[in-house]
């Protein structure tokens, strides 16, 4: 039930915190965050984020909407769930980050970046074959940066690819597919329908 976020232009937005509390998956638990920093300290990839989850959550309270939604924090989250397991206040940090990423796409904040490109390739494979094909996901991801960059990245990682093939972690034949692709399609269509309906209500 995503309602439009208020005052898109303001650096500080008085209604943003309440909007996140109400609209972001897990946001209703965000009020319980006591800013202990255990999540940021536990995050294996925290150093790659421009703000750790703790700070991001405080920025939400401070109404720093633009900065929060254009942050790379949620894109770098690997969904390892360490923060969720450790948070003393049972804040579902990972869900919140995932949905913040979705909201940032929805509201046009997310610029194409490495993580969003990878997500796109991953999703393409999943919905097309019902499985992720390592070779095709990687190829699609590499070439999304252009042909030259695609070839370069491919060559750089050839050794790894070869090793994966030898150990059976990657194959060269037709992509593996699930049996009931029509069923998958129906599931995805239903999910899209629900999402559509909920966002209208």
């Amino acid at each position, binding site marked *: 039930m995503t309602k439009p976020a208020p005052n898109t232009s303001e650096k*500080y937005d*008085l*209604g943003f*915190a*309440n909007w996140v*509390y*109400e609209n972001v998956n897990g946001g*209703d638990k965000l*009020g*319980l965050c006591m*800013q202990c920093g255990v999540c940021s300290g536990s995050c294996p990839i925290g150093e790659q984020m421009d703000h750790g989850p*703790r*700070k991001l959550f*405080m*920025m939400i*309270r*401070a*109404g*720093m909407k633009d900065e929060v939604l254009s942050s790379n924090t949620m894109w770098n989250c690997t969904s390892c769930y360490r923060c969720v397991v450790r948070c003393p206040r049972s804040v579902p940090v990972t869900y919140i980050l995932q949905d913040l990423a979705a909201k940032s796409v929805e509201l046009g904040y997310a610029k194409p970046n490495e993580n969003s490109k990878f997500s796109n390739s991953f999703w393409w494979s999943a919905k097309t074959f019902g499985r992720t094909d390592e070779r095709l996901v990687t190829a699609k991801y590499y070439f999304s940066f252009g042909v030259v960059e695609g070839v370069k990245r491919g060559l750089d990682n050839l050794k790894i690819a070869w090793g994966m093939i030898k150990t059976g972690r990657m194959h060269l034949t037709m992509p593996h597919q699930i049996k009931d692709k029509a069923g998958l399609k129906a599931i995805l269509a239903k999910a899209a329908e629900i999402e559509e309906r909920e966002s209208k209500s």
Partner: protein
Amino acid sequence: MSDRKPGVYLCKGCGIGEAVDVGELEKLPASEFKIGTCKTHDALCSDEGVALIKADIDGGDINQAIIGACSHRVMTDKFSFNGTPVIRANLREQVAWSQPAGEEDTQMLAADQVRMAMAQASKTDAPSSSAVQELVQTVMIVGGGITGLTAALEAAKSGHKALLVERSDKLGGWANKWSKRMPHLPPYRGVEENHVGKLIAEVEAHGDITVMTDTMITKTSGAPGKFEVTMAHGGSDKIEMIGAIVVATGWRPYDASKLTHLGYGASPDIVTGVELEDMLGDGKLMRKSDGQKEAKYIAFIQCAGSRDPDHLPYCSSVCCGVSIKQSLQIKRENPDASCYVIFDELRTPGTAEEFYREAQEAGVIFMKGKVKSVGGDMSVVYEDDLLGQEVPLNGLDMIVLATGMVPNSTNPDTEAAEEEMNKYLISDINPAAGVSVAGYTGDTPDPVKRPEESIPPGGSILNLQYRQGPHIPILADGFSDSHYICFPYETRRTGIYTCGPVRRPMDMAESADDAAGAVLKAIQAIRSAGEGASVHPRTGDLSFPKIGHDICTKCRRCTVECPFGAIDEEEDGKPVINESRCRRCGTCMGACPVRTISFDNYSPSMVGDMIKAIDVPDEFEEKPRIIIFACENDAYPALDMAGINRQQWSAYVRVIPVRCLGSVTMLWVSTALESGFDGIMLMGCKSGDDYQCHFIKGSGIAKERMSKVGATLKSMALEEERVQMEEVSIADSHSVAKVINKFAATIGDMDPNPFKGF
């Protein structure tokens, strides 16, 4: 001085027999004090031991039992013989358990303990009570808010008549304004209905409660059990006899007009928490300025004026909970509202933490930081502690200042007392002021003035007709003086108990508890007055100070120094002790320059004789002697506990327990010096603003007196370091031995007192 027939009983149990030669001690009473009866026993506290003493009493052989065994603080039930005076010599905790066994010095110490007890007995009589007083059972309660209403009900339910006096035209006080109350019942989560209406109905329906609204107290005189209270009501005076008084005058909100730095006055939408209560009644919260727009963005600013040295230096304790309550009320009405609570520290003690969590779950937004500015354009800028940067909040609909509590320790409706009376008020509210010690050098030190604003403006509540002025003494922050560290209900006016926010900031639930406690104390005061016995801390003590009026020079030192205002003066200056106001601390005794105040079992000459009874070896023996006057409330128990823990201290020390350091007269100091003691130490409770003294000002008065002792010592050509004062609390048992040993070392380094042997 009736016929004293003392008997001495020495115990050999608990290690005493191993530590000292009790057989030697047994010879002392006869050889030095001509006391015929002296018996020993292996365990005096056993049935057989007790029977031994009892038989002598019953047989008429003795009428005073001197018991050399454990500390006087223990086995009091065993060694209690129907009012026969019992004098204890501490041979266990402070000899056997704190000195090496079998040593010559240990034996000398034990002998002196027995000598002191015998000297004490020679000046001890069974206290004769001050006779039964008039006994009025009515409890008067001043102030008809939550605290006063609860107090009236508690008193009535305990079988007493209650008179509830309220200055305004209706009961309920501030609580009438509150839309809801903070939770006080499990699970301490939800906002609760305001119960003040119910409480008022209950009070009004109770047959034993008389309510007087529109009534002001103009005069209070008398003492517990017989206060005479004059009240002005409807243009005429009414006089009531009252047994004890509970003061529940509550609080007033801090004057927000002083908070211009937080934007108060800059916009009608900047309001105080109290003002917001009026707007929260029912339905939506509308902006105050136009009454049209629903307030959606609301910022609460905590500690508005509180915890601010320029305004109220203390935490008002309730405003955090109130802002939580109010933001929850707003969120319940309108979930889309954004409530920001900007705090430096959010104080939610105990179960209030549950309430805080409820608000967090409800989406109230808590921000930790310091407010930098509040603008009439409805903006707040604060420095966020967790982001490390300034954060602006623009376009708010309302800004709520969580203002604090000012105690109604004065009556804002009346004028401050005239100069003469105020003099005592000012000295009384500042425990550090040298005030009350009329002084042994003859000058009265200037009272230290408090900044004007720490005394809430207004006149006295009860207008006490006491020598020490019309007020219940006030603490530095303006709250009524209560022994808030150890005995929170005790004021310094016996039989008058303060409770609720006039004593310290508190919420409704705490106030109700406080009221119940104060009523119990009031009832105790009435009963004790009837028995002629003391209330706290010498509960049940029948002794009281007696003045030798033939010797008294009417110098007024006793009337000025009594921490409880127990002594009034007659026209000609003759001091009159109101026994039921007296707490039996002996501060008056310590003050009297002609030492004509004494108790039946405690007097200047009694302790003087105890000092003289100690055997002081001459200078060639190289055994210095140090005397310690130890407060029996804290310092003496700390010493006992040190003994129980088998800590050892210098065997050259002799300890005399005193009721309060305030009772230590300079006579004892000079007697000790003249008797050849090398050092003197006063050990007692902390004095000052955060005093721990059980008699509140006693140790402060002693400190003040001792500050003058240097000159006396110099005039005797003695070193100033020979007399010291040490603050020891009951928790200091681990360090008290070190304190003694350090002093003993200092004294050991000095030449012996040249007065030895004179």
